[in-house]
């Protein structure tokens, strides 16, 4: 029978199957960070258990790290959390890309760039945006701390196989329309739970033509649609991205792996539990206006009128978002004033993202009412960006250039949006209080964020000069 890539990945990882139970599946790679792991390690210690495969476990610190003065951690609770991870990694023999390591960065940025993330793998992390790694044709999903403990102890997880959902995007994106706009558009059209209980396979011309970094942006936000995971079948783009990366085998072994990876693609005629088809020409640069990622409109659009809502629940949710964001019904997106700009997070902090933002920032100045920061996703990204002078472009334009970490994506460190201020952010969640109590987040692409920084409001990047280059 014709199989989807999801079937193939699942079947390959079954360790044990029993009637009436979820499957016990093997986990190839377990990524660990400081926030969701301490309770898991203490659980192990309480029961005198070991980490089964430290060699398949890799840790870093990202959520808590300061992006200025990174070695001077003033929050004792954050310091303790990082110290706890350090001690746990030492005790259990786990490799840690610590704060002083050139490999440190957001866990979902460093996995791929170090080549830890590979096609065909099952990958878990105590973090919902683990779906990012699906861009490589791996089955990658977020887990809670109990499952972190379970994975540490057994290198397996009990999982019921989710359903499959095909999201096919055909055609060609217009200039200035980026991967972030694609996924925001999908969310705006299908809502925050269209993917619940499913694994998404993204396919179609648009996805095939994307770089790996763009595919990661799309897969990253699968969870915002409620999906367990999102993935893209491995192809030549995947293989060329991985060739030569640190943790990927070299030489003949690589060529053999590459063949196996390509064979993972869904078979002709494979069927899905649900299918969605989208035309690229429908998609414009998008801006979220509300308090969940589906509350998003084209930059040329407006926020809804309550009368347009299709259900009581939607009406309530729109009304509460309008109140929190301090908007009136029908307000134009172009009239929203911006005070903060954040370019970063596991959605959009890779080299290509920074290049796109720099393209807009180049030769312009950050608007006097705006404070803008650029936070590279990893120390590696930072070094590469500096090598091509992106830091100079940002600094000349009046952006701040920071050290790597999660930063203002969830504001666990000192990078906080003050109450009432509007922030154009390349991150993935615009929940109430996410960037600080009372903060108002607008999710956008890196180019749109840079455009907002220099204009002090949302401007359609397609109308700005040098947008030609932004594609």
């Amino acid at each position, binding site marked *: 029978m014709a199989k989807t890539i999801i079937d193939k990945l699942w079947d390959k990882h079954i360790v*044990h199957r029993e009637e009436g139970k979820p499957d016990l599946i093997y986990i190839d790679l377990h990524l660990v960070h400081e926030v969701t792991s*301490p*309770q898991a390690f203490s659980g192990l210690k309480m029961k005198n258990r070991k980490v089964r495969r430290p060699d398949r476990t890799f840790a870093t610190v990202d959520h808590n790290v300061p992006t200025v003065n990174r070695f001077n951690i003033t929050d004792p609770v954050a310091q*303790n959390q990082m110290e706890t991870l350090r001690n746990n990694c030492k005790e259990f023999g786990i490799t840690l890309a610590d704060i002083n390591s050139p490999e440190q960065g957001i866990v979902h940025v460093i996995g791929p760039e170090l080549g830890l993330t590979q096609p065909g793998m099952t990958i878990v992390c105590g973090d919902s945006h683990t779906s990012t790694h699906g861009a490589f044709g791996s089955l990658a999903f*977020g887990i809670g701390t*109990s499952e972190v403990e379970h994975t540490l102890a*057994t290198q397996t997880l009990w999982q019921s196989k989710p359903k499959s959902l095909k999201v096919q995007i055909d055609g060609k994106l217009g200039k200035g329309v980026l991967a972030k706009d694609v996924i925001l558009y999908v969310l705006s059209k299908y809502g925050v739970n269209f993917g619940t209980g499913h694994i998404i396979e993204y396919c179609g011309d648009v996805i095939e033509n994307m770089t790996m970094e763009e595919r990661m942006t799309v897969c990253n936000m699968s969870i915002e649609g409620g999906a367990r995971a999102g993935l893209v079948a491995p192809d030549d783009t995947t293989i060329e991205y991985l060739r030569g990366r640190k943790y990927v085998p070299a030489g003949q072994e690589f060529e053999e792996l590459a063949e196996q990876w390509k064979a993972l693609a869904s078979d002709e005629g494979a069927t899905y539990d649900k299918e969605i088809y989208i035309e690229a020409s429908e998609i414009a640069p998008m801006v979220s206006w509300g308090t*969940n990622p589906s509350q998003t409109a084209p930059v040329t659009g407006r926020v809804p009128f309550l009368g347009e809502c299709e259900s009581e629940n939607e009406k309530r949710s729109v009304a509460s978002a309008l109140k929190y964001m301090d908007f009136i019904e029908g307000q134009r997106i172009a009239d929203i004033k911006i005070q903060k700009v954040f370019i970063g997070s596991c959605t959009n902090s890779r080299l290509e993202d920074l290049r796109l933002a720099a393209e807009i920032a180049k030769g312009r100045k950050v608007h006097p009412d705006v404070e803008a920061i650029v936070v590279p996703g990893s120390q590696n990204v930072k070094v590469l960006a500096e090598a091509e002078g992106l830091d100079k472009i940002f600094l000349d334009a009046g952006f701040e250039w920071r050290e790597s970490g999660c930063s203002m994506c969830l504001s666990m460190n000192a990078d906080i949006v003050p109450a009432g201020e509007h922030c154009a952010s390349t991150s993935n969640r615009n929940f109430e209080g996410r960037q600080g109590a009372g903060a108002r987040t607008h999710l956008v692409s890196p180019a749109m964020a840079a455009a907002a920084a220099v204009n002090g409001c949302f401007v359609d990047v397609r109308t700005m000069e040098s947008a030609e280059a932004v594609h």
Partner: protein
Amino acid sequence: MAGLTTFRGKVAGMDRVNVDTDQIIPKQFLKRTEKTGFGQYLFYDWRFQADGTPNPDFELNRPENNGAEILVANENFGCGSSREHAPWALLDYGIKIVIAPSFADIFHQNCLKNGMLPVVLKDEEVRYLIEKAKDENYELTVSLKDKTVKDSEGFQAEFPISDYWQTMLVNGWDEIELTLQLDERILAYEESLI
């Protein structure tokens, strides 16, 4: 984790959709390295005003909801991050069971793994319960054995739960212990990889 079979408790309603984990437990409280002590921060930004005093309008602060152990909420409860701090905070606060028309996947899993029961009921059943919960003395009895929710006035609804989780929760079993008994299977799988 003690076994859970039948539970009777006071009900609080929270008629909000898409309640996300950032609301259940805001990120500034995720830095603890223990599983306990999160209850004081549950729904922090909704529960407390800027000056730290309780917000009288927030559902759980209303006098009729004092001491509630069953929370009835609306669709897509627990969406957002995978933080297990969300069920820990609910449990630590005293909530044993959450009822909603739908839950976000990871949150649903995280509840089960902490011995907290996520109960999925139909839209109209949830709407009925949210209305009834306005009564200070309203209680529900949830039977994990029969998979039912009942009140004393004749309301009765069935909820789905897999046999696997039913058994796990009723017996209060440790999942890791169960898996470690399959060690040979895991070893055999690992050998097949080489």
